[in-house]
């Protein structure tokens, strides 16, 4: 009964152990898809037959718009790149952008939300208005503006990825800000915070030791949902031409943009594969996020039926009732 901080109580692992039935299926599907994405990103140089910016090999140029063949399993693009290699390397860009965007927005959003919620006053009001104003903009438009401001048209790998990540960050900060602020306001009035105040604990110590860790419970959930949104925003930016040049990195949205003209001329392989990669990535991350959401709520979480020893002939599972018999597991 002492400290049980084993791997079993880690955020996602804990929920996986807790889930049953359809919810488990959704979570497992999501985790598998996400796992494939991450593995592909890590092992991209081993998996991809060619480089993302490679136009020729020892036998000469690949040629443009070649249909799938033994040399090019998924064909080549209008620019003469190997589709399979670009799809595989695209996962790298995607993961990179997700990680940078989420880390940046979490750090900034959580910090602002905590300060704003705990201290309140005029600072809180100003920050809330700013967050609302950011919400009011169409997120893609805002990302485009941010991309232009940050990269100024340049698009090296690091520059392009950072530009995409930061422009996504701008859109996401208000989400983390709001969630953490709302939690902070709630926790601020909890008895354990008051008890810390009675003891004479300083403001900063209360914020970091008592409020922060209790306010971050729902973050894993927003992270997964935001990750899928980040992919879409990145693809949208690429599709609109604010992405990364093909020689700097592979990017699914950019490839889709280049394949528009192919679609009408019956060249399907240049658009289907990057498109499918986007869909599966978003699907995987969304499934993880949605099932975590359901599992976090005792009212939405389905449970294994209670074991019954005799045959279930005279068993009545009565509907209704507000007895939420659920105990939140201790996920730190």
């Amino acid at each position: 009964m002492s400290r049980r901080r084993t791997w079993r109580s880690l955020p996602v692992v804990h929920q996986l152990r807790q889930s049953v039935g359809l919810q488990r299926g959704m979570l497992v599907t999501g985790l598998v898809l996400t796992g494939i994405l991450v593995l592909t990103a890590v092992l991209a140089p081993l998996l991809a037959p060619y480089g993302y910016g490679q136009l020729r090999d020892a036998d000469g140029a690949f040629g443009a718009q070649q249909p799938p063949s033994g040399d090019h399993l998924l064909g080549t693009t209008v620019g003469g790149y190997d589709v399979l290699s670009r799809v595989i390397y695209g996962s790298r860009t995607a993961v990179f952008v997700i990680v940078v965007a989420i880390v940046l927005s979490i750090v900034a959003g959580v910090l602002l939300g905590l300060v704003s919620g705990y201290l309140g006053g005029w600072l809180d009001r100003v920050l809330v208005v700013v967050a609302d104003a950011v919400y009011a903009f169409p997120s893609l438009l805002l990302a485009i503006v941010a991309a232009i401001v940050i990269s100024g048209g340049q698009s090296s790998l690091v520059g392009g990825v950072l530009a995409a990540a930061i422009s996504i960050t701008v859109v996401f900060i208000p989400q983390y800000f709001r969630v953490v602020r709302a939690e902070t306001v709630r926790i601020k009035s909890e008895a354990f915070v008051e008890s810390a105040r009675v003891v004479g604990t300083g403001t900063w110590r209360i914020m970091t030791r008592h409020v922060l860790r209790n306010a971050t419970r729902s973050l894993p959930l927003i992270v997964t949902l935001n990750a899928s949104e980040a992919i879409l925003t990145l693809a949208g930016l690429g599709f609109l031409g604010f992405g990364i040049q093909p020689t700097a990195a592979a990017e699914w949205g950019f490839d889709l943009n280049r394949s528009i003209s192919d679609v009408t001329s019956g060249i399907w392989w240049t658009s289907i594969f990057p498109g499918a990669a986007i869909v599966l990535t978003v699907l995987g991350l969304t499934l993880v996020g949605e099932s975590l959401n359901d599992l976090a709520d005792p009212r939405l979480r389905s449970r294994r039926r209670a074991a019954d020893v005799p045959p279930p002939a005279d068993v009545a599972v009565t509907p209704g009732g507000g007895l939420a018999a659920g105990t939140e597991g201790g996920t730190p």
Partner: protein
Amino acid sequence: MNEPVVDIRDLRVTFATDGGDVAAVKGVSLQLHPGEVLAIVGESGSGKTVTARTVLGLLPETALTRGAVVLRSKDGGTTADVVTLHGGDLRSVRGRDAAMVFQEPGSVLNPVYPVGWQIAEGLRAHGDVSKKEAREVAVDVLRRVGIPDPEERVDHYPHQFSGGQKQRIVIAQALALNAGVIIADEPTTALDVTVQAEILDLLRRCRDEFGASIVLITHNMGVVADLADRVAVMYQGELVETADVATLFADPQQEYTRTLLGSVPKLGQGAARARDRAARRPGGWADQPPVVVARDLRIVYPGRFRKPDFTAVDGVDFTIAPGEVLGLVGESGSGKSTIGRAIAGLTPVSGGSLSVLGTEVAGIKEKAFRPVRRRIGFVFQDPATSFNPLLTIADAVAEPLVVHGRAGDTDDARGRVDELLEAVQLPRAFGDRFPHELSGGQRQRASLARALALQPELLIADEPTSALDVSVQARVLDLFDELQREFGFAALFISHDLAVVDLLADRIGVLHHGRLVEEGTGEQVLGNPQDPYTQRLLASLPVPDPVEQAQRRARWAALR
């Protein structure tokens, strides 16, 4: 006519939870006879609520019910086994044959509909009633439960009624359909003592005038003594003992029942303790400067959006001498907690003067007050929320020591933490546990350990036992008394329960609407109350003895 209206046979209920299956009810058989009040008593987790809820089929989907609950309609014509009913059949039984009165009347009524509409809703669900008829029934039933001007008030919304009136309306909902069985789940727990007496009186009339049989679920033995005809004692999902009320209180058969009855604090027990404490005080004790002095203390919560300000504390004078325990009693909204919070610097003082340990608190800055804080301990009402769920008990108890620089971190303070845990009779190993791994009583002990970590001169205990079961409460109160004797701190003990305050306090102050209406020793206040409010409060308090309670009830009726 002696057929039981509710016949529970070998009821077993199992819940599927994250931690595996939990058997909440393990083979309970009970009968409720017509015109009878059956009280089911037990501590939290004893399965009393689950048992009663099965009568209405009101269990969540995670529950698995076995056994039989046979419900007979009021005229005795039809019987139905609720456990096997589904959908429409179950709905037709609910309300018509059995109705429910919940604990929290404020959250049972829908705030966006008039109360008359909500009473009529039940009528519409069970038959074709015209609007006019439904309204007439609603007005009639409201009048009979004692709502004044029912013709007008039938169109009022729930927020326009007081807590006690809302509970009357919930009971009226049950009576409108003329239900044969009323399940009352802690119907008075959320209400003040004086209102509780009125609701109990109304429930008694439900039986006498409406012929309803009542299942009363409660943990308050005073309420049982006041209302019940027969008592079923439950413990951990099993029926311990069933007896009629006089027999149970006079001659309990089971050990558990005896313990339960013995833990209930009774008025008048505290006088001996108070005398004992007074005798042990050294000479010149009364001449020491007091720990807390309040003079014409006023605390006002500013109104929002043009609403008038709310005066929570209105010109209160009191002092607490070193080593003295002052008990503050009052109903909800009387300002008793506000005074405690003001002393701890959690609520600003609006007027008058409040001096804590020689420091004037009115208008003080947080920074200037911080040195005083280390000399004050605070025990909160709800032990479940007063601990940071992510810190171990040792972390929480060490926190005051770390904050005030007595220790570098938790490990550094561990020796002192272990001492404190031992002082509150918790094993040292509990320091490594998280708050949710402790029971309510254990958490409240840990809370005491935390409050005492800096050896405060003043301890404020804000309803420290009201969230605890009665047997646990008894142990925590004993512990409090022991610690007070050992450490010699002065204390402000806040409670709504006169008997609890009487047990611990040297002096008792009675608050009513922000004013201190009476103050004196326990013997003075409880033995010979001068203020009419104190008299009413005392008369409303049900005592856990059916014979004495019947006499008190008569006196209460006279005072009304």
